[in-house]
Structures are given as C-alpha cells and as structure tokens.
C-alpha cells in the first residue's frame, strides 16, 4: 500500500477515525499496531514474520540491558541485538552482493568459485526498521533511555506505518515517549499544517518526481544514442526526481503522522540550497545522516583522534552510508564520492556566504551532488561511466526535448517551494497564509495533482532500500 493510492485513501480515514474514537494511548497503540501490520502485510504477509522476529529480539534485549548491571554481560547482550539486526540485513539485502563480489575477486586471481545463491525476497523497508531497532538497543545500552516495558508499545515504535517503509528513521529517544503517553488530537492549526504537509508531499511526488521519472528512465535506457545535452538533462532530472520523491514521501509521512498526534523527525531542510557538501549532508536525509553520526561515526572515534583518523572515520561512514542504500558497487562509489567531497570540503573551509552572494556556491554544490547521483541512478558502474563519457566527450545524438520542457516546468516549482520554506523558516508555512491565499494555493495544487496524476506513476525510490 502506498501513500498515493486509492487503497491508502480508504485505509487512512478508517484508521484515523477509529484511532480518535479510542480512549487512552494503549488502545490507540493497539489499533496503530494492527493498522501498521495491515499496511505492511499488504505488500507480502511473509515480510511480517521477519519484522516480528527482530521486534521480539530487540524488545527482550532492551529489557535485559535495562535490568543487567554487569558491563561485560550488557556488552554481549547488545552484540546479540546488533548481530541479529545486521545479520538479517546482511542475509536479505547483501548476501548476493557479497558472494558475487567474492566470486569476481576470486576469478581475478584465477580461482573459479561458484557462489552459493539464496533466492530471498528483499523485504520492503528492511533497512529502515532494522535501524529503528538498533537505535533503540544502543540507546538503552548507553542508558540514554529506559527500556520499554510493554511489547505493543515497542512494536508500534518499530512498525509505525507512516514511517515504516521509507523513514524518516525513527529515534527511540524522540518517538518512544510519544507512544508511551496520551496524544492530543491536532487542533485547527495542527490539522491545517498536517493537511498542507500531505498536499505538498503529493505535489512533490506526483507533479515533480513522477513526471520526470519516465523521461529520465527513457534517457538511461539507451545511453549510446543520447546527446550530451540529454545526459546533462537526465542527471539534473534525476536530482530533482529523487528529491521530489523522497522529500514528498517524508512530507506525507509527517503530515499523516501529525493527524495521529505524533511528530516524526524532519528529514529534509532544503538540501539543494546548500552551499557546501557538508551543509548538504546536514540538510539531506537528516534522519540517516544523524543516525550514522551517532551510531557509526562517533563510536569509530569521530573527530577525537586526530585529523587523519577523523578523515578515515568520515570516509568510512559515508562509504557504509552508500552501501546502506543498496547492495551494489554503484552505491559504494556514490558513498565514496560523497566521503571524498566531504573531506575536501572540510579542509577547504571558508566563511559561508549568505544571500545572493551564496548563489555560486549553491550552484556548485548542486552540480557536485548531481554528478554523484549519476552513480546512484546507474544500473552498473559501466553504465555510469558510459553516461559520464557521453557528457565529457560532448556526444551527439537524441535531444530529449520532452525532458527539457518538463524540467523547465517542474524544476522552478521545486526550487520555489524550497526558497519560500527557507525564507519563512517553516515547512508548513502555507498554513500561516491568509485564507484567500491558502485557498488559491490549495486549488492550484489540486489542479496540478489532477493534471499530473493518472500516469504510469513510479514507486517511491526509497522503498527499495
């Protein structure tokens, strides 16, 4: 079940109505849990078994960590949780990648190895909910939070449907208190801001991402025949597509969750207005970058062990961040590129310009990020190299005029939303506008949604991760 479907349009009001009719957070949690399992099971009921398994392990590990006082035992208990969560991830997501890569490596030194294969279906959203679980057990281990003492509350934290399949990656310290306490129904202002978040999210997904997706895909389909201009347009198009797709999903998730009286983490903060790669990573997929910072970069030593070790830690974190996205070398290269750019960016730290003087930095950062997206989007490293070669050699061929036209139509819209959000300092700034202005904006949004929907559509990109 996806947010931009008729099924969800029926599902949400039913769950929401039932939720606010129930009194007390425990009953509401029970309903949320049931709804979340229906939502997730709609893809494939078998996925639920895996989620129940990791949920159960993390819950009991948390309880044990809470009670246990012996540091040695606590460490081993934490390791159990990490092994289970990362083991599940490794088995379902990375097994084929590692065995294939090993076979290629062995082949290069003359060993012929036939790698074992597991025909496993990749459970949707597995990377997200395993990270939920890890953040919980690590935080309990560090005694930053208390373990949850009832399973349904913990289970709903892991499986909460608005954020289950594509984040934002939940942090136990932020979200568990919300599930453990009574929620207040959103008042008029909260309701309006929630609806605006959902509406803007749908516009980003359907109007921007889905209109670009088929045109970008078409360019990637036969790279050899595309002109360099088409390739540049496809690179920019994918930059906007992935941002519209992912931030659109997050906006809808946050808006939907707000209707349940639960706030989710903010995942994007106008990333394409960043003036450096470092700033980009403070604004893009914030819940992942902060997760990696707190649970990987800092434990590795962070910046506490000298410049060289800091650089290594940063690079390793970005490399693994790349691999988190998918089991392919293209994602590893994407992570490595960002790691390298971060290192250079950090060493060339300059005073940050503001206002109009920052525009060259914003454009340069967007260019670098867009270049790295080529590897993220490519089906293989060869395809990425072919793509870049086509641009560098000013390859002749087809010009994707439709892509250019669509970019000129939806690109300014995306940047306009971001610029106004930045100037107003609020994602849901539309809810503060005078009523007539809100009315006109809502009408324009609905009109755009009507015109841009009904196509082939494209699944949310981050569902695959």
């Amino acid at each position, binding site marked *: 079940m996806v947010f931009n479907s008729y099924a969800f349009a029926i599902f949400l009001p039913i769950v929401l109505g039932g939720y606010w009719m129930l009194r007390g957070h425990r009953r509401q949690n029970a309903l949320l849990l049931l709804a979340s399992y229906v939502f997730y099971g709609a893809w494939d009921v078998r996925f639920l078994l895996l989620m129940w398994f990791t949920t159960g392990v993390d819950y009991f590990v948390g309880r044990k960590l809470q009670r246990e006082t012996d540091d040695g035992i606590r460490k081993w208990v934490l390791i159990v949780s990490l092994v289970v969560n990362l083991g599940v991830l490794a088995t379902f997501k990375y097994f084929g990648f590692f065995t294939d890569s090993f076979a290629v490596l062995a082949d290069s030194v003359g060993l012929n190895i036939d790698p074992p294969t597991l025909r496993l279906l990749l459970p949707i959203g597995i990377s997200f909910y395993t990270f939920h679980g890890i953040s919980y057990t690590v935080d309990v281990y560090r005694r930053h939070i208390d373990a949850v003492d009832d399973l349904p509350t913990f289970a709903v934290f892991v499986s909460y449907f608005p954020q289950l399949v594509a984040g934002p990656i939940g942090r136990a310290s932020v979200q568990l208190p919300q599930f453990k306490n009574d929620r207040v129904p959103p008042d008029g202002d909260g309701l309006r801001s929630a609806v605006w978040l959902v509406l803007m999210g749908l516009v980003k997904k359907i109007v921007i991402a889905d209109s670009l997706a088929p045109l970008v895909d078409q360019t990637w389909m036969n790279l050899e025949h595309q002109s360099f201009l088409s390739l540049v347009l496809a690179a920019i198009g994918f930059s906007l597509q992935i941002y519209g797709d992912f931030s659109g999903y997050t906006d809808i998730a946050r808006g939907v969750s707000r209707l349940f009286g639960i706030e989710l983490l*903010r995942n994007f903060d106008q990333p394409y207005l960043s003036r450096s790669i470092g700033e980009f990573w403070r604004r893009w997929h914030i819940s992942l970058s902060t997760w990696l910072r707190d649970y990987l970069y800092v434990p590795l030593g962070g910046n506490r062990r000298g410049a060289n070790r800091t650089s290594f830690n940063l690079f390793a974190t970005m490399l693994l961040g790349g691999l988190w996205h998918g089991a392919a070398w293209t994602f590893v290269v994407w992570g490595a590129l960002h790691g390298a750019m971060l290192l250079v960016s950090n060493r060339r730290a300059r005073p940050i310009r503001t206002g109009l003087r920052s525009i060259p930095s914003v454009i340069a950062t967007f260019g670098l990020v867009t270049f790295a997206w080529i590897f993220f989007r490519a089906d293989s490293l060869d395809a990425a190299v072919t793509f870049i070669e086509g641009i560098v050699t000013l390859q002749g061929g087809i010009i994707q005029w439709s892509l250019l036209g669509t970019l000129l139509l939806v690109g300014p819209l995306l940047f306009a939303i971001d610029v106004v959000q930045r100037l107003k300092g609020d*994602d849901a700034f539309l809810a503060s506008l005078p*009523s007539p202005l809100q009315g006109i904006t809502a009408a324009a949004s609905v009109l755009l949604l009507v015109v841009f929907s009904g196509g082939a559509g494209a699944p949310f990109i981050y569902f695959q991760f």
Partner: protein
Amino acid sequence: MDATPGAVLGDAPADAAGGHPAARVRGRRNRSVVAWALVCTAVLFLVAEVGVRSLGTLPPNRTWPDVESQFKAEHAASVRAEGLREPLVFAGSSVSDAAFDPERVTEAAGLDVPSFNYAQEGSLASSTAMFLDAAVLDDVQPDIVVMGVYPGDIGAAPTNAASLVDELPRSRGYRRATGSQNLADRIEEAASSRSALVAHREILRNPYRLAQWLRSAPGPEFFDADTGALTRHRARSIDPALASPAPGGADPSPDDEAIGGVGHDTTVPIAPQVAAIEDLAARLAAQDRRLVVVELPVLDSAWDEASSPDGRERTHDELVGVERAGCAERLDLRSEIQDPQYWSDGVHVNAAGTAAISEAVGEWLADHPDPPADC
C-alpha cells in the same frame, strides 16, 4: 538565507513528556480556509476546463504501454465503431511490422478487402497473441490472421523485446479491452468522459509535446497510419561489408519512444511462446478463422550464429510442430531475399524487402483461398 541549518528534530522541540507538538501557526479559521479552497478550486477548474477545450482536438491519454499499440488498438476500435471489418490482418513483432505491407499483399492476392498490420515493435509471440485477443479480433472480425515469426519472436534467439509481455496486461487499455478494469480505471474513465482536462492530461503535462501538437497535430512517426506497417526501415539499407546485425537482431531504434523498458539481449523460454501460437491457432480455428504462420527470412550472412546457435533450425522445428498440432498453416519464406539489397539490418527488411515478402505472402494466399480440409 540562513547561515546555519534549522532545527533537525521536527518543527518543535520535545515537550516535557517527550512529545513533539505540531508547530503553532498563526490562527486562521479552518472553515474560512476550506471555503476559499472550494471556491478557488471550482473557479480554477472551470477556467482550466474552458481553456483546454478551446485548444481544439487533443490526443487522448495513452492507455496502452506504447505508442504503436495505442494507435492500433484505437484503429481496431474505430473499425468496429464504423460497423466495418478487416478480413485480413497481420501480426507479430517489428520484423513482421516491417515485412508486411497490407496493400501490397492484398494486391498480390487479388483480394479487394480492408486489411491492416497489427504487428507491434517490441512484441514476442505471447504478447502478440495477447494483443490480438484483447484489442483486435473481436473488433475487426478477421477471416485470416497472418503472423510473422523470426527466431527472436519465440525465444530461439536473444531479443530486445521481452518487456511488452509484462507491460501489456498491466496497461489500462488491456484491462479495459478484457473487461478487467479496477476501481482506478473506472474512476479515470468516468472522469475522462466528463472532463477534457482529465481526458487530455497526458499531453497537458508535457509542454514540448503540447507545443508540437498545437503547431501541427503529428501522425504516427514510424508506421503508416493507413496500413499499420512499420516504415522506419524502408529507406535504409544494410552495409554489405558489415553484414552483421546487432546481437539479438531487433535492436531498438534510437528515435523510438515506442518500446518501453526493453532489456538488451534477453533470452526468454521458448515453450510459452510456442504455446501462445498454438493456443491462438486453436481459438481462431474454433471461430472458423485461419492463422497463417509465416517463417520470415533473416539475412543468413548477417546472422549472429554465436548468440543463437541453432536458433533458426529450432524456430523452424517449433513452427512445423505448431502446424502439426493444430489448424495453423505455415508459409516458409526462410530462403527468400538472401541479398543485402533487401535489408535494413540483419532481420528487418527495407522497402524492397517489404515488397518481396508482401508479394510472396499475397501469392501464397491467392494459391490457398481456403483453409486445409482437415481443419
């Protein structure tokens, strides 16, 4: 712009209980906002609807997976709507699309009947059968279906045409033609019948296509609107020195938007493709219709033997089996036109090849006016 990024954790800091209350916004009465939204929406939609209607005739939204299927399905529907029939139709992949010119076939056969080529670029035998069943046979009521087959069509050689098999059943047009519409289809259809804005939204959201259309409504670019035959190969000629096709033969043309999502050099299992032809023959025979399977030639000197060893022999054996199994008739043209002058590439014929194949088919039909007696 701010010098530093804003807060990370939601719009507001956690309260004492750890919750994150929604950001407070300056009070506006929701009722007033909703009223304004409704009025503005009504006005805007009215203006947009009038604006779209004033643009004149616009193309409807695409409901089939590719341009060619869309055009040909609409053509078949229009034949039915006018109360007409097409007694002779052609089917297959791009190879048949290029090979059969219905006008030349009917002329050579001495037939004075409407005829149309329903072959689709990017099709396999199974998707050809699917398309015929869903969009063609009931609408145009043919007496004879001529289906061209080359090794790539049945998986005996690698092909670039595996995607249509998946995409066809997922398309709205296919679901409509087969009476398996879902809720979204019904809503779409109801809205399209009432609103020009909805009925033409595909072109409205593509400014380049809209501008092109408004300048001069373009016809199909790569096939003949009157006969359905593929025209892109007609003016081309294969370089005799090369005499070596792209592996898998039917290489997607660079200027083609018709083939959606093709993979390169895909190998598909043969059995389902052959079964699809046998099933089609049986269904047609049950309706007193004929299926003529034409074994199309490939340019032997250009055939990539390495990528499909025994592909041609296997295809021949399978089609002989199809002929034996049911009521399909078989026309073997494999040894025809083995001169590069007839070819656009190793598998698609140019204008001279189209003429030669079409005349051969026409003459065969003239010699075989009736189905086999034992069928």
